[in-house]
């Protein structure tokens, strides 16, 4: 599977214009990370945006793991927002394959092609919202409340 095909299989990039996908494909590369690799480090610049194709990645804050991500998920959103620094440590739990895009080139493409920028931002909101809801549920500690059965 090419980078472009891998991107188009993700809801984040599916059904973009062929030229847009082609452009994104040129700034993407497939990568393999062995288990235990630090992909993102807290408070350091984010250079790449990763779509997980297989494997599992943990997200930690100050050493405390708050979530794990698996295939089909996007690793990190800090590349979108200045100062483009990671808020989390991202470490592979298992051997992990990604398709990774150069953030600087991606932001430039979104700035130049506003249709592409708008489409990506709009699609990015859903997984962000799902992750926010997931965090809210974790904070609510729902399993500790309630019943007897």
């Amino acid at each position: 599977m090419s980078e472009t095909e891998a991107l188009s299989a993700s809801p984040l990039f599916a059904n973009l214009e062929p030229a847009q996908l082609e452009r994104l494909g040129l700034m993407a590369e497939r990568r393999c990370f062995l288990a235990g690799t630090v992909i993102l480090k807290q408070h350091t610049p984010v250079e790449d945006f990763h779509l997980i194709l297989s494997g599992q990645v943990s997200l930690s804050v100050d050493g405390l793991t708050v979530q794990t991500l698996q295939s089909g998920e996007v690793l990190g959103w800090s590349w979108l927002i200045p100062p483009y620094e990671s808020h989390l440590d991202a470490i592979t739990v298992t051997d992990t394959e990604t398709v990774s895009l150069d953030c600087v080139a991606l932001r430039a493409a979104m700035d130049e092609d506003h249709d592409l920028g708008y489409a990506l931002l709009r699609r990015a909101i859903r997984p962000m919202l799902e992750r926010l809801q997931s965090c809210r549920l974790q904070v609510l500690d729902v399993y500790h409340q309630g019943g007897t059965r």
Partner: protein
Amino acid sequence: MAAPQNSPWAPRRYRVEAHQAETRDVFTLRLRPLAGPPPTFVPGQFNMLYAFGHGESAISMGGDPVADVREGYLQHTIRAVGNVTNALRKLPLGSSIGVRGPFGVGWPVDEIRGQDLLIVAGGLGLVPLAPLVRQVLRQRADFGRIQILYGSRSVDDQLFAPELTQWAGFESVEVYRTVDAATPGWSDHIGTVTHLIPSLRLNPDNAVALVCGPEIMMRFTVMALAQAGLPDTAIYMSLERHMQCALGFCGHCLFGPELVCRDGPVFRFDRLRRWMGVKSL
């Protein structure tokens, strides 16, 4: 006047034969009737357990619907959370308790044959689903792919951990465990159970979801299932309400027009959707 024999109002006496701590506040009782065999049951039904001097509490049927009944006992896994359940927890072996039931509508085992099953359990919600899994695995060829998602608060709060590993060894059975907060050494998922659903690659045309857990978790699960393309008619969930009579008379467990003790506790979601968003219902 005493209730007539075989009346659903009259508790039957059982002996506490074994007591096993599952987590710090959850325990399993093995109960054997003082006379006669235990009743058969459908996974998802419940019993009213009567701690003498304390009162009754509705508790889901646990254990194995085939093997346990054949062996002549019932099992209930219970969280010690109130007066009755704390009294049940303290019962010494050999003491007797009252049991009424089984009551209610369980999981639709026959209707879901031939389909892929997505079983989503949160916390103690695994208890009513576990007998279903045990029954389904005994008839493995009758069902399609089975995916089991189990979310719990922490690694120590997980129920039936060795059995979950055993289930994952069956052909075409996938078990995904997740915890809200992990401890060192945990290598499964971290996060809510709903977070796992988008990556499952469900076949909405031939899949059915069976969901049990805290209500807020079930609401978010249904949203994730809808996003994955599952219609309301392919989602079943087990509700928990305060049940008193268990026979549909007293109305304590009313949920919209449904009496949870009699019409449920397992419902197909299209019957519930309208009422799920109503506050304090």
